[in-house]
């Protein structure tokens, strides 16, 4: 960890020892470069993002290297994951015709999920997605994808018309509503997609830091012990919540990706 609050706590900073609570802050999300490649500083979040990509590649390679009709072991697990994404995310939005987008959605879901799960792995304990660059990059990829798909399926003008003209609205209100529809479809969608994931992971990590640090800081042979135990219990409960959130945010990200693609391909939503 690069941050100062963890350092001061680890050095024996406790309540009643004359030192204030080393509150976690945004500085806990900035890391010193581990090494530099061609002028680009590589930090922990970058390593984690590459690692999660490598984990997914390795896992699915092992799972589907020699696929058998009756799956065993890793293939079983891999099929479970792919089928979950297909049935719970993709087909809910796109129906059967959307199966050609399955690799994309599977990649998005697992990449986001593994990057989120890093917030819970001991010694790693940092979600790469709590750095805005990663959700923003992913949202940009999604944005380019659904715009391209929309233009391919309806032509640039037809797609633009669909994005600008809300269906079912009477004509006289269109001058008022079209700008909102257009702005919401082109700019707000990728923006909210990125912010939702980023803010959820940032706040979750911050919460865990607050209570994790507090349970160590409040630890002393006094009334502080009671606070410390309470804080520790909250850390455990919030970790359980984070387990849920990591999966939920990946699910929402993938679901919305599928929804945007569906919106771009469907003739009438």
């Amino acid at each position, binding site marked *: 960890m690069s941050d100062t609050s963890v350092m001061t706590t680890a050095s024996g900073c406790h309540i009643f020892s004359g030192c204030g609570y080393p509150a976690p802050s945004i500085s806990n999300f900035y890391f010193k470069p581990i090494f530099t490649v061609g002028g680009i500083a590589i930090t922990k979040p970058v390593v984690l993002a590459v690692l999660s990509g490598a984990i997914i590649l390795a896992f699915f390679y092992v799972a589907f290297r020699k696929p058998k009709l009756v799956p065993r072991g890793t293939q079983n697990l891999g099929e479970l994951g792919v089928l979950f994404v297909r049935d719970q995310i993709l087909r809910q939005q796109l129906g*059967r015709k959307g199966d050609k987008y399955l690799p994309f959605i599977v990649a998005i879901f697992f990449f986001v999920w593994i990057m989120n799960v890093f917030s819970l792995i001991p010694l790693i304990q940092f979600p790469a997605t709590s750095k805005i660059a990663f959700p923003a990059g992913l949202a940009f990829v999604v944005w380019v994808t659904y715009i391209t798909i929309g233009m391919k399926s309806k032509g640039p003008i037809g797609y633009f018309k669909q994005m600008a003209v*809300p269906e*079912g*609205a009477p004509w006289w*209100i269109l001058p008022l*509503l079209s700008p*909102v529809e257009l702005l*919401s479809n082109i700019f707000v969608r990728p923006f*909210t997609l990125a912010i939702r994931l980023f803010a959820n992971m940032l706040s979750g990590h911050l919460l865990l830091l607050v209570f994790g640090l507090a349970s160590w800081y409040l630890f002393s042979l006094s009334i502080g012990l009671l606070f410390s135990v309470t804080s520790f219990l909250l850390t455990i409960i919030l970790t359980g919540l984070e387990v849920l959130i990591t999966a939920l945010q990946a699910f929402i990200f993938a679901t919305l990706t599928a929804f945007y693609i569906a919106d771009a391909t469907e003739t009438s939503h």
Partner: protein
Amino acid sequence: MSGPGAPKGGRDPSQPRPASEGWAILSYMIGGMALYGFVGWLAARWTGWPVLFPIGMLAGLASAIALVIFRVTRS
């Protein structure tokens, strides 16, 4: 999802709308408020009446709600 009676490739109208439509509403709300809030802010700076800024935001919210109503109640 898409059973035999469903429109080709589309969503089955007898099924409830997926939760993602709810998420899509969020982008209308933000888009409407941002756009007409900005217009209202510009108008407020131009005319010197600061009240135009909140009026613009409310108008944006109203248009976003109208969009959502049209989107949900059509067909």
